[in-house]
């Protein structure tokens, strides 16, 4: 493979390569000239130059909120950024249904729930419910998916038991509450239960939530992770392709638009 030529880039504020960055943060000190200087020093310590403390506001008696503009001299070679190329375009609702019908030849069974103590169904509802999210239909609407949304506060054991009873192809775990990393603890417990039940590595195990990303999901033992902004169609496309890979009908190194990275 020919190495692509260098493409050096820096942030673009008002002029090419000016390196302008906007920052905002709070320091636990009362508003004063000293506080403003502290904000400037903090920003310089991060490696910025031309620091301009644009706003210093008394957020409370002992807290000052800053908006800062500064320049960064950091540059990077865009050509060296390695993200797998998009090969397959994401399929539309109709195309994906037709694709599953042709390639899989049966409905894909998906179970989802917000497990553990988490009561927030907004994520799992957006992906699974008929209505979907932002005009993107949920999996229940796809005739070639058989989707079950078990709701919130579902024990991991129960989700896995119910999914196994219907020979699920994929299980979606949603975790919204992230305080003190409760989502990680619960997700690890889910994987332990999945391992004990013998479905780990067999059934697709997907994790979703506002503080979830693909990397975290992989670390925790899931097959994929979906973060904020994920649409039901992203998940639907992922599940279909992953299933086909498992069935040996698609190459393992195939990449497609919208897959978790």
């Amino acid at each position, binding site marked *: 493979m020919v190495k692509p030529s260098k493409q050096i880039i820096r942030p673009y504020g008002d002029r090419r390569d000016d390196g302008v960055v906007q920052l*905002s*943060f*709070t320091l636990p000190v009362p508003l004063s000239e000293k506080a403003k200087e502290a904000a400037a020093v903090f920003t310089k310590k991060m490696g910025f130059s031309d620091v301009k403390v644009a706003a210093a*506001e008394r*957020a*409370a*008696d*002992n*807290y000052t*909120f800053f908006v800062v503009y500064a320049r960064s001299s950091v540059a990077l070679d865009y050509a060296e950024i390695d993200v797998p190329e998009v090969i397959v375009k994401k399929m539309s609702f109709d195309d994906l249904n037709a694709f599953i019908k042709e390639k899989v030849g049966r409905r894909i069974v998906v179970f989802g729930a917000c497990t553990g*103590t*988490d*009561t*927030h*169904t*907004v994520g799992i*509802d957006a992906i699974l*419910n008929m*209505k979907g999210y*932002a*005009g993107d239909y949920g999996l229940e609407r796809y005739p070639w998916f058989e989707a079950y949304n078990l*709701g919130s*506060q579902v024990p991991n054991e129960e989700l896995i038991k119910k999914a196994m009873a219907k020979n699920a192809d994929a299980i979606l775990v949603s975790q919204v*509450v*992230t*305080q*003190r990393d*409760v989502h990680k603890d619960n997700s690890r417990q889910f994987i332990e239960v999945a391992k004990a039940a013998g479905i780990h590595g067999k059934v697709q195990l997907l994790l979703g939530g*506002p*503080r979830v990303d693909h990397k975290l999901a992989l670390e925790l033992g899931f097959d994929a992770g979906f973060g*904020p*902004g994920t649409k039901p169609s992203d998940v639907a496309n992922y599940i279909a392709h992953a299933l086909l890979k498992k069935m040996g009908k698609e190459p393992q190194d195939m990449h497609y638009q919208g897959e978790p990275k």
Partner: protein
Amino acid sequence: MPGPFIEDAQIEHARKLAEEIVNPIFDLIRRNTTVSTERTVLRFFGISGAGARGVPLANLMVDKLKAAGVLNKGAAYWYGRALHLGAKSPLEAVERLTALPTDKLGPLSPEQEQNLREEVRAEARAAMDDLKSRVAQRNALREQFPMSPAPHKYVIVATGNIYDDVDQARAAAQAGADVIAVIRSTAQSLLDYVPHGATTEGYGGTYATQENFRIMREALDEESRKLKRYIQLTNYSSGLCMSEIAFCAAYEKLDMLLNDAMYGILFRDINMRRTFIDQYFSRRICALAGIIINTGEDNYITTADAYDAAHTVIASQFINECFAKRAGLKDWQLGIGHSYEIDPYRDDTLLLELSQAMLVRRCFPDAPLKYMPPTKHKETDIFFSHAYDVMADLVAIWTRQGIQLLGMMTEAMHTPLLADRYVALKSASYIHRAARGIDEEFTVREDGKIANRAREVFGKAMQLLQECRDEGMVAAIGKGHFGDVKRSETGGKGLDGVLEKAPDYFNPFLELLEAT
């Protein structure tokens, strides 16, 4: 007032339908009690401590009485019997009492029975007076340091550590917040007890405990004095312990509680009967303590679509209002909930949101109303989200909302940073200041989009109310009419905590609360 849109007679008719819907449920409420209601009675008598391994004494006692099969006479009755046994503590007395063979638990002589009840009633009156004097202390502070004009800016603290929450609450008050809500640990709704003590390591919030309430209210009292502006405190009277939490909140001088007649049924899968009975006693306590309740209709349109399900919000509000009035709450205590949740990529959403908020204001002219910000369609582009929240600020002042939960620009990412609250408070203050009185300057045309949409939504709400009246509330919930969630009368958690009252059931607090 932005508009009639709807004839007075129609609104009256909606209220009448709500009453007919709620009536049969009051038969259930009158005939039954619950374990949590009985625990509340014991808490009124001062039994707020915890035994070994942190189990609340109220739970130990009620569980023992339930196991002995005598709880249906009322915990207050057995409290009286226990005191007569001369034990050193009420717990010890109940232990002895329930250890007695069943034939020894029979009624006393009619005269003794009469005397016992009179003694317990006297003690109940004293407990009630104590509670009232605490509420009076709160009211005095409120009068000494008046609140800012409405909409009262409501923000959330959610660190999971009550002491960190205190720091954030003070900072929020200093930045202009009028109401502090301490987020409750998400798991608490399904606990059939109120945890004891201060929370320092909560998941997704702190527990609603009497001690946490005390710690936060004490800090806010201090802050109110400092700022010369009373800062209100709210928490959640929901889940399996609605009335116990209401008591703890009343005792610790809270100002508001999230309290909905149906929320637990729909969104926490708590049994219907249990919820209906518990909500009544909890609301009786709120009525006495001058606590403003916040109903949860905003939740319907985070699950169902806000445009399509707008009428379910209105219908539910009439039902919630009726339950509340039947429990003695006054209009000024009804923070009827609704929210700004229509998909912002539709056309005309400012008009649609105004229409909905104006309709709620039209239906409930004397209630403070509780307005909730966008959440479902919030984006991680914080600059867009901030602009989106500001529109909700405008609708709030335009429709004279009493309480406005401020949107946070980082809603789609994490619990608010300290600065997020500051930014939200600063811009809400600006919008409220800039547009106060706008409703009196602009009249809304009766033949325009806003009025027509309001009539359409109200019409559908009336249809739904009629359906609920004809089929009954239970069937309506069973069909998923509210929040797209279906529940059955005997499903859900907590049904085993519902007991039919014995003919000589005794609850002096209910007697006193219903008499006021």
